[in-house]
């Protein structure tokens, strides 16, 4: 009996041990874990962040966080294979199962998420998106004015060491926020419909009188002409000449006030081609040639283009400076929510990093909000010193602009945050 109890007890103990080992808490990915206390102690402000080792066992120094503008755990430099967006090891807006490395996604990729069991494409009008360069036409001019920034666009432009102006776009962030409206139609329905028809007609009156009107057969003219007066023709012509000097001015009436100053050519005014007009005509032809390309009138004489052939090449020297390293700025955008109802507030964060090989200056971040996002006044903050201003865009929302006052060194970055209300 004791032996049986002993065996039963042993079975229960073994079974419970087996359960404990099988139902253990799954280990989470290391990228989402909070830093351990000992690692906090070892990683200082100026010490490199060593996050993983290569197959040979040597530690790989990813980047050195030197900017005081970023949080301590911030990571700059080229994202590695284990980086998935920083939230629980998974990109919040990537499609399920996409665990690849971080990359800038396109508009089509952002909408690759689909409801369960529905084949793509599916309607995406329930989402509002912000970020990226929607038409891929954002550009910066020589005078540093930015063109082609449409609604939803989020871009950053900067100046490289050799003076070039570069532009880069962020990723796109989509938030589920459907908004509804209605079309109303009010009518008065016909309740009663009655058809009436004339059944008959009764007329009691008869014709009892008939008048006949005779046609006149004779016309009498009451008055006749009594006489005729003849008109004599002129037989005498008197000419009167004044003794004064006769002055007469012959002016081309149709030309007065019609020709413009630049039309002062004999060819145009009188149709006579003069040698003296040649140089002046060549200049005008040149002006016309500038406007030739699909823009304005063309000058054609005898079916041939009027041109002035003149050499414009002069002695010149071209110097090409090649600086070491390539400039590159990365800008990434994330939202605090993936879905929001009308009236709720969503916080956006823009993270920019100089992941190139040379410092960049005049870094300016521009975010043109979409129509349904309303900027919450005074909600922006920047980790680096920046000049902030706003401007209204086509969608009656705002264009937010941060101009960094200091250049951005290699591997340095910053964060910009702002809030928007979904309307």
């Amino acid at each position, binding site marked *: 009996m004791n032996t049986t109890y002993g065996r039963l007890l042993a079975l229960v103990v073994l079974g419970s041990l087996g359960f404990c080992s099988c139902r253990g808490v799954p280990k989470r990915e290391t990228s989402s874990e909070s830093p351990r206390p000992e690692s906090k102690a070892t990683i200082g402000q100026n010490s490199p962040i060593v996050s993983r080792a290569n197959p040979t066992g040597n530690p790989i120094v990813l980047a050195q966080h030197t900017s005081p503008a970023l949080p301590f755990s911030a990571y700059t430099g080229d994202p590695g294979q284990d980086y998935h967006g920083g939230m629980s090891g998974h990109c919040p807006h990537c499609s399920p199962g996409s665990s690849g490395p971080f990359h800038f996604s396109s508009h089509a990729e952002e909408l690759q998420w689909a409801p369960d069991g529905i084949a793509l494409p599916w309607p995406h009008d329930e989402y509002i*998106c912000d970020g990226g360069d929607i038409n891929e036409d954002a550009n910066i001019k020589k005078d540093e004015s930015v063109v082609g920034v449409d609604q939803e666009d989020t871009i950053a432009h900067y100046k490289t060491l050799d003076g070039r102006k570069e532009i880069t776009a962020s990723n796109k962030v989509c938030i589920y926020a459907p908004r509804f409206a209605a*079309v109303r139609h009010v009518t008065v329905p016909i309740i009663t419909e009655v058809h009436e028809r004339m059944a008959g007609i009764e007329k009691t009156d008869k014709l009892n009188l008939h008048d006949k009107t005779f046609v006149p057969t004779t016309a009498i003219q009451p008055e006749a002409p009594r006489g005729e007066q003849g008109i004599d023709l002129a037989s005498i012509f008197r000419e009167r000449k004044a003794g004064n000097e006769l002055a007469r001015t012959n002016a081309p009436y149709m030309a007065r006030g019609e020709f413009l100053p630049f039309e002062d050519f004999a060819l145009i005014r009188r149709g006579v081609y003069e040698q003296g007009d040649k140089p002046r005509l060549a200049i005008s032809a040149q002006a016309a040639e500038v406007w030739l390309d699909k823009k304005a009138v063309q000058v054609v004489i005898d079916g041939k283009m009027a041109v002035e052939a003149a050499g414009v090449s002069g002695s010149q020297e071209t110097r090409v400076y090649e600086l070491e390293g390539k400039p590159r700025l990365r800008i990434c955008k994330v939202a605090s929510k993936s*879905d929001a109802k009308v009236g709720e507030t969503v916080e956006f964060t823009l993270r920019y990093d100089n992941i190139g090989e040379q410092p960049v200056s005049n870094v300016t971040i521009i975010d043109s909000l979409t129509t349904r996002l309303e900027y919450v006044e005074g909600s922006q903050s920047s980790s680096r010193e920046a000049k902030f201003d706003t401007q209204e865009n086509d969608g009656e929302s705002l264009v937010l602009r941060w101009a960094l006052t200091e250049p951005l060194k290699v591997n340095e970055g910053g964060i910009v945050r702002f809030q928007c209300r979904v309307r």
Partner: protein
Amino acid sequence: MSLTADPIMLHRLTKFALLAVLLVPGGFAFAQPPVHYQNRADMPPGEVGQRQLLRGGLLAGYFQPVEVTAPKGAIVSLAVEGGFDQGDKESVLAGMQIGYVYRMRVANIPDHAGEEVYPTIELVDRLYPPPGQAARFPVPIELTAEELALALEGRFVTRVIYLEEPRAALPVKDEPKKQRYFEIGAGQDPLKVADQMGRPVAILRMGSRVPDGLTPDGKFLYHSPPLLKFTTTPVEVKRNEGLEEPQLPPKVGDRQGRTFKRLPEGEIKRR
């Protein structure tokens, strides 16, 4: 110096002429083709929804949450099993299917004591919210006091609720409890106008119809189509973005509801 033909300029002119020849017929080809609308809002109730089902897609069998709001004090009752339920005050949230017509009774209308209006709701499309968020983002249908009064006067009110296209949305601030609407003229079709402004999802018809006798018959109630009524406010589901489990249809009694046929993995990702 003489004006002679420059070969470069001649080449440019030739290109320009060639482009003009190519683009003129091309412009006609890119023009918007004429749209023939097969559906109208004044079709018999249920016709538009049924036609939508014929087009295919994951529309049939899905309970699309709909939130009906009425003026303060009014009681909204839904048609359930051949009669009206006891009703909810001011607001009711229920899942409705596309292609059916749902009759409601609005009673206790402010300033119209003792009078009742019997609107109908017809869903013509559905939403595709993230998993677990369907009840949080229902299709809103507002019964305004003005429209209820119009219906009581004998007018017929048609309201087509549509989903706004985000990029073409009006830059106005919406009040969450108040639905924005546009009034159209007598000769216009509200379904067509709504389609031009967004994606129509529901049609509300109201007025000119009262049940015969004390007990409404099945025809008046459109045979009480299946309904999924939310008795409590839906709880906000914690998101696990990108890792959501596939949603199962709700249980009917002890039985698990009908499972939608899922597409194979390769088919889902195929564009």
